[in-house]
């Protein structure tokens, strides 16, 4: 078997085990929270009778373990069930939300990853001179700004002062691509500002590390232009750490953007998950949790594979 194929298979098997463990942890976590779905739905207006009837209908009277295994067997057969709170099909609702989340993450990544890497290369080319300091200064300030502050600032600038974009980023089927892109312009900007610094700094550090090598000196002595040296000779050898950071940030764009979703009223997975945790809607929390875990695991496997491909030495473990 090809060593990379073997590695991917091993990682995937391990990933499935991790998902199983995650589902158990999520279940325990939600069970530990005070109150249950019935109480959360009826809130302050709950009467004992109404609570009893609702619990009966939602099957909450069964022991926790029974409920977990029932859910697990259904999920293994591809049936995510329906939300306890409003009876909507989970796979359909999650499908739409996940699509929205991936749409936003895709456009944020499309702008931020190349931008971060190019800025990183420029920073190395002019290291310790003003372009380097300017790039570092700006990106470090944007990462230090909490997401919601950045969001409000952009909202104030581009929706209230200059009416360029809409403050509400709600997208729905039936909108053209252009309308959708205009709607998500502000959240994409915020996300780009947030993830830029991390990737840029990593690119810069990794390349600087390689710049000490003898072959870079050779390239310099050959008379190559500094930017060609960095892009052609140094960067390929610095890919592994950069890819790791890029993947971490991509995972963040999918999993961790709930604040941006709330500020711009974007119908993504984050807000959907938070709502259902608040209501103790276990099947939905499980579905979202597992998707998030799978995204993390998948992107990490991808990062490892790319690192190995980029560095022949890693292909032959000792």
């Amino acid at each position, binding site marked *: 078997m090809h060593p990379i194929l073997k590695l991917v298979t091993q990682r995937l098997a391990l990933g499935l085990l991790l998902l199983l463990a995650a589902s158990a942890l999520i279940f325990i976590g939600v069970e530990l929270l005070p109150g249950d779905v019935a109480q959360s739905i009826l809130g302050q207006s709950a009467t004992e009778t109404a609570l009893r009837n609702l619990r009966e209908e939602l099957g909450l009277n069964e022991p926790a373990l029974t409920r977990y295994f029932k859910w697990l067997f259904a999920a293994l057969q591809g049936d995510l069930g329906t939300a306890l*709170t409003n009876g909507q099909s989970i796979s359909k609702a999650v499908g739409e939300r996940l699509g929205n989340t991936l749409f936003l993450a895709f456009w944020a990544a499309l702008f931020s990853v190349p931008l971060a890497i190019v800025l990183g290369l420029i920073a190395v080319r002019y290291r310790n001179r003003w372009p380097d300091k300017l790039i570092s200064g700006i990106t470090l300030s944007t990462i230090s700004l909490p997401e919601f502050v950045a969001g409000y600032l952009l909202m104030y600038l581009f929706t209230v002062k200059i009416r360029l974009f809409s403050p509400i980023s709600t997208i729905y089927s039936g909108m053209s691509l252009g309308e959708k892109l205009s709607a998500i312009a502000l959240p994409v900007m915020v996300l780009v500002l947030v993830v830029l610094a991390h990737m840029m700094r990593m690119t810069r550090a990794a390349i600087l590390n390689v710049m000490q090598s003898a072959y870079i000196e050779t390239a310099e002595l050959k008379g190559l232009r500094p930017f060609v040296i960095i892009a052609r000779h140094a960067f390929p050898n610095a890919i592994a750490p950069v890819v790791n950071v890029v993947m971490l940030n991509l995972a963040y764009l999918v999993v961790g953007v709930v604040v941006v979703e709330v500020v711009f009223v974007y119908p993504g997975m984050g807000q959907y998950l938070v709502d259902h945790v608040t209501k103790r809607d276990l099947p939905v929390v499980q579905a979202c949790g597992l998707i998030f875990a799978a995204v993390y695991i998948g992107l990490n496997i991808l990062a490892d594979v790319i690192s190995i491909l980029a560095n022949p030495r890693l292909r032959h473990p000792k």
Partner: protein
Amino acid sequence: MNDELKYLLGRTVQGKHSRRAFLGRAGALGVSAAMANTILAGAARAQEPKKGGLIRMGMQGGESTNTLDPALAASEVPFAVNMTWGEMLTDVDPHGNLDMRIAEEVSSSPDAKTWKFKIRQGVEFHNGKTVTAEDVLATMQRHSDESSQSGALGIVQGIESMSAEGDMFTVTLASGNADLPYLMGDYHLIIQPNGGRDDPAAGIGAGPYKVVVNEPGVRHGFEKHANYWDDRIGHADQTEILVINDTTARVAALQAGQVQMINRVDPKVYGLLKKAPGILVHATPGRGHYVFIMHCTAAPFDNNDLRMALKLAINRQEMVDKVLGGLGSVGNDFPINSAYPLFDDTIEQREYDPDQAAFYYKKSGHDGTPIVLRTASGAFPGAVEAAQLYQQTAAAAGIPLEIKREPDDGYWSDVWNVQPFCASYWGGRPVQDQMYSTAYLSTAEWNDTKFHNEKFDGLLIAARAELDNAKRKSMYAEMAHILRDEGGLILPMFNDFVEGVSDTIGGWESDPNGELMNGRAHVKCWLA
């Protein structure tokens, strides 16, 4: 009419000036009050509704867990959504009068035990079926039978039997209740085809708009129900409710013109938003109130002297000013204010009195250990700050309070109605009887102050069946006195509904029944 008067008039009709301010300014211009009143009435009448267009509301209080089943509606967005597609037997108008909706007429037996509702002819559900008395019966049965999960169960459980015959729906109560027609206007009791038994969350009702888009927690879209019976409401062709839970985003959406109305304007930005061009901010006094509740059965609150000390140790005006930003009114330790019919305004206002508080505290013989007050930021907006203010003013009277901040999560199941002293809120009810029956009758399920008073209970039951309003009013006043002086309720303030509305909207009316014109602003207003 001179230009200045015209300008004033325009501002007043738009709501930028109060009626009183208009009369004052008009007087300064040499116009008599009677004349000014006539001018004003004419101008208000001249605002004719315009048909067509799309009205959008941006609202806080929606989650992706929401359902269209009216039995399970609890937060603001499901409430407004249900008011768009659904209709009840009756409703309460902004002046507290009964508004006949699906029921055209109502009559009762002299003991107020048997009520007959005549069902309006030719009202059509969105699926094309005609609304019948059987549908009404099935609806009420779904909310009241033994398998009911409805939030209205507490309201309808006094019903002994119901029947439908021809166009007549008859309710027989276990004991008389003069307010039954008001209770039938409860927002859970939306009439659905076959009572919603087939699919409770289908969103098929007899309201002015049909559900077109239902994305809980994101947006709800509606289009006009062509065969709707009442052309006094439902002016826009389409309407949409966007869920915008973030306060800043909601205000920005209004300013950018993406939505024409928003609920829950933060008192902190009230003054600023008022100055924004093209936006009107309305503060509407309602029946909702913020409270601190003591269990009258649990030590040390089982001692009425201690309860009195704690009632005297709160500075109500300061709370209204600081917690509500002045957008509210002071409470008087009973849950009724002038927004209720039959309110007695002669009941003496309780004031902050540290000396008296200290006197009662001493008299109660409390051992001086700190009294634990539980609060959470979700108990009501500003509940933590209000508790801290309370701690300060109580300390000035020598009463030690210890604030315990609880998590929002699980507050309504683990703290409220469980712990003996905590912060809470009530949304108010359309009539006094319902408010008292919900939370102050000894046997009430939500008797969250554990208040047991035979005389109070007796008066409540007697007033319920009393059809003479003068007698009823004096009974309610007596009950208010009992609750104010012996109850476990500390009610420092009634909160206003604060809402932002674009000046492109016509027909805004202040409605104490609920926020955004009782959830119907988008249904009753029009694009001017």
